[in-house]
């Protein structure tokens, strides 16, 4: 529960081993309660069935938390996916005599692929399309299984036997242990994933799609992975539901059933680790004890959903952590302990495949020279870039100046692949990068900052820097999920490196500060640090000094010099002529989509036509 804490300033605690052990206590208590549950209720079949349902629903809730809570994608088709898993298992078992286990396994890919076929067209467009289409899928699947004969029509499929192992027929409590074990596996894998670069990329994507693309995250791909995880969990849940209920009927998979999961996750706390468990428990405990609420169930869902989305988007977990941090009961999140010393010390503890400090030699060997040739770009008949050509020498600091509306930001957007030019080519170090999407350009070594810094508010300063290394981390998804030694070592090394980068820029005091609390002047430095972290060949900055105090500007100037010394080419759009004259090796003046001068600052700013176009004199 400590991950949502808001107090940013308190740093690492001395006894980290004990802390880690303490963090596991709630999980252990929950696990023990689940395992002891059958004997606590005297093996009462009714209560065990309820516990099973909670465990099965939890699987789905974890998937919903991943897709909605961490990715921000509102999917509402859980009913349909669970229905397919349920019906598939029921039909394979009753009509074809398959065992429960093979039927369950076979259903997973079917549900995942079917879900993907529906998700892909709408996921590309927008969250709303995805939400509406997925909500409609529930009704359609419900209508079709009622209509078809092989799904048993209105009555559904009855007489589904309990699973067997050899000749042993599992009891309900055996099944409960299986479901609890599944939950443990899902929780462990998921929290490993959330703590990794994939988790940070998900959050980056949820809070700023452009920031995610600019560090090389294939956003649609990652969302599809999260969606596939949810689909698989829905399928498994459906299979288990069919044997627990021994009957599968269309009425079980209503729209309300799908909305239940969303409500449960929102109530517990979307995007928090304990949210799904709390939410499912609350929604199970309350209606079970208050039978008279049954006919008001949907209305309660609606009201709760509305109130929480507006007043407490982080649900119960958010409320509890807010209260706790306000009253000082919990220690806020500590940054994973990295010994803070001089960069040299960090350098000494080089280990594994990680890179404790910047690898300057590697950067120097890469060509960050950029050539734009004859770029044209129009928006609805307005020609913003008109045969624009410029040449940025490798490892130089190159400034682009020009009046407002002259096409400077459009130029950056064309270079970074956010816009595709109508004609012309962009070449980086001899390689053509025209026509590639934003994340692919980022992966080729183009980092950028935005006019408004894209700082992820839910992550602390260090994590904001760390996401720069997204495409750089070597540990595979499997290694991350299992939290293997290599994944752990790499994570530690990258954290050390992120620290040293921040220190190099003189911004290490924001390492433990939550993104939303980082002051404006430091945000820019965090973005620059993120770019260094990504070991890009070239860094594009869009008006980095806008709104900074003279002090902060000189800090930024020093930071950009550092970047350049590390071997990265720097391209900046800037209005502060003094700053440009001070640091730029080369200046291009753009006016009405064309380059009207390109030379050293001293030469450029002495030309009369530049002064008239730019300064209006």
């Amino acid at each position, binding site marked *: 529960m400590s991950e949502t804490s808001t107090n940013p300033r308190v740093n690492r605690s001395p006894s980290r081993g004990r802390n880690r052990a303490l963090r596991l206590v709630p999980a252990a208590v929950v696990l023990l309660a689940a395992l002891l549950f059958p004997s606590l209720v005297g093996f009462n079949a009714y209560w065990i069935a309820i516990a099973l349902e909670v465990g099965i629903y939890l699987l789905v809730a974890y998937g919903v938390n991943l897709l909605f809570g961490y990715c921000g994608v509102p999917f509402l088709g859980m009913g349909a996916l669970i229905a397919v898993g349920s019906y598939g298992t029921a039909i394979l078992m009753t009509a074809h005599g398959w065992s429960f286990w093979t039927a369950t396994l076979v259903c997973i890919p079917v549900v995942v692929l079917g879900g993907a076929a529906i998700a892909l067209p709408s996921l590309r467009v927008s969250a709303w*399309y995805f939400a509406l289409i997925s909500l409609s899928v529930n*009704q359609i699947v419900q*209508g079709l299984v*009622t209509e078809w004969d092989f799904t048993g029509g209105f009555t559904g499929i009855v007489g589904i036997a309990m699973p067997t192992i050899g000749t042993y027929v599992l009891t309900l409590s055996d099944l409960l242990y299986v479901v609890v074990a599944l939950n443990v596996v899902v929780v462990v894998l998921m929290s490993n994933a959330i703590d990794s670069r994939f988790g940070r990329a998900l959050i980056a994507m949820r809070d700023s799609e*452009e920031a995610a693309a600019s560090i090389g995250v294939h956003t649609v791909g990652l969302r599809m992975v999260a969606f596939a995880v949810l689909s698989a969990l829905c399928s498994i849940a459906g299979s288990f539901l069919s044997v627990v209920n021994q009957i599968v009927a269309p009425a079980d998979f209503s729209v309300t059933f799908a909305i239940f999961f969303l409500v449960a996750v929102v109530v517990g706390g979307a995007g928090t680790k304990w949210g799904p468990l709390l939410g499912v428990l609350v929604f199970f405990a309350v209606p079970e004890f208050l039978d008279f609420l049954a006919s008001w169930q949907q209305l309660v869902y*609606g*009201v709760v959903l*509305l109130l929480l*989305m507006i007043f407490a988007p982080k649900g119960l977990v958010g409320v509890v952590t807010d209260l706790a941090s306000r009253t000082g009961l919990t220690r806020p999140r500590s940054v994973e302990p990295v010994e803070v010393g001089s960069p040299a010390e960090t350098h000494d503890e080089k280990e594994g495949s990680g890179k404790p400090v910047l690898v300057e030699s590697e950067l120097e060997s890469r060509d960050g020279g950029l050539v734009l040739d004859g770029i044209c770009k129009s928006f609805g008949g307005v020609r913003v870039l008109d045969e624009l050509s410029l040449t940025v020498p490798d490892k130089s600091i190159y400034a682009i100046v020009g009046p407002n509306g002259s096409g400077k930001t459009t130029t950056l957007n064309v270079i970074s692949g956010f816009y595709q030019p109508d004609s012309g080519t962009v070449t980086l170090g001899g390689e053509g990068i025209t026509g590639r999407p934003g994340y692919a350009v980022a992966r080729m070594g183009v980092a950028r900052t935005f006019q408004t810094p894209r700082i992820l508010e839910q992550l602390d300063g260090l994590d904001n820097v760390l996401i720069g290394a997204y495409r750089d981390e070597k540990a595979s998804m499997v290694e991350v999920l299992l939290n293997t030694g290599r994944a752990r070592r790499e994570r530690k090394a990258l954290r050390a490196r992120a620290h040293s980068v921040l220190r190099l820029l003189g911004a290490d005091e924001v390492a433990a500060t939550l993104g939303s609390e980082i002051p404006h002047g430091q945000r820019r430095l965090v973005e620059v640090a993120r770019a260094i972290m990504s070991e890009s060949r070239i860094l594009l900055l869009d008006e980095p000094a806008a709104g900074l105090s003279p002090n902060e500007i000189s800090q930024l100037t020093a930071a950009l010099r550092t970047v350049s010394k590390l071997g990265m080419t720097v391209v900046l759009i800037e209005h502060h002529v003094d700053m440009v004259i001070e640091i730029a090796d080369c200046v291009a003046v753009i006016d009405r989509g064309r380059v009207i001068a390109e030379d050293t600052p001293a030469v450029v700013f002495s030309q009369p036509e530049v002064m008239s176009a730019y300064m209006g004199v």
Partner: protein
Amino acid sequence: MDLTTQVLRDGLVFGSVLALVACSFNIIHRPTNVLNFAQGDFVMVGAMLAAVTMTVMGLPWLVGLALVLLGCAATALVEERVAVTPVLRRSMTSVSWVITTLAFSIIVENIIAKAWGPNPRTVPVPPGLSQDATDIGGALVSSYDVFVVVVAALILVGLELLDRTPLGSALSAVAEDREIAMLRGINPVRLTQRSFLLSGAIAGLAGVLVAPLVLANTSLAVQFLLPGFAAAAIGGLGSNRGALIGGYTIGLVQAAAAAQFAVAYQSAAVFVVLLGVLLLRPQGIFAPKAVRHV
């Protein structure tokens, strides 16, 4: 009775109603970028209020209509106040409104169901018209059918004209950039409220028009949400012409699916058509391609 021409009649009549629903989606979407889950509920509220005012209370059709439009507009305004503006104020880019409008839709549907029960109710047609059908070219068409098609078309023409007034330009300005519109003296919150009022009234009108054909009942909300949005999306969000053509298209697809297979396949057919259009032309047929903002 000829099956093909009958499908044509069903398609045009229900398509006209869908075109109105599609427009009501567009009207809210323009200044807010919000697509409203409760849009189908406005249709349902319109039909139910028509049953209450015209059938139960026995008020004249026009008086009943006025009350229905007021009621639906008011419902929409309540939604704007409690479910849309609070989340938009926090962030223009978050998608919380997807969930809050869904929540509002659940609430409205359940309140109406609690108040008036699940039984379908009849709603009268306007005086002078009837649902007695005559055979025209093999299709059974009534004077009321013609009325529905004409009224929907007139409303769409009216909305198109409205778009060309200063109010229409203001709406476009807000859609483009809320903050810049504000600097030019446009109050986006008031515009948002006005669009909710208008959108609620038009969706309510769709409910009044469709009620005599299908009986007023709470499931209308669900029945009109997907097809109404599909009509807007296929036509291209924001385009009145697109809404009309999208409405007719979806109306025909539904009528054909019902005639060819079974009613259960109606939504499946709409769904397949919508996914197909999204794959080939995500922005719809008439809308301009969206420009990415950075």
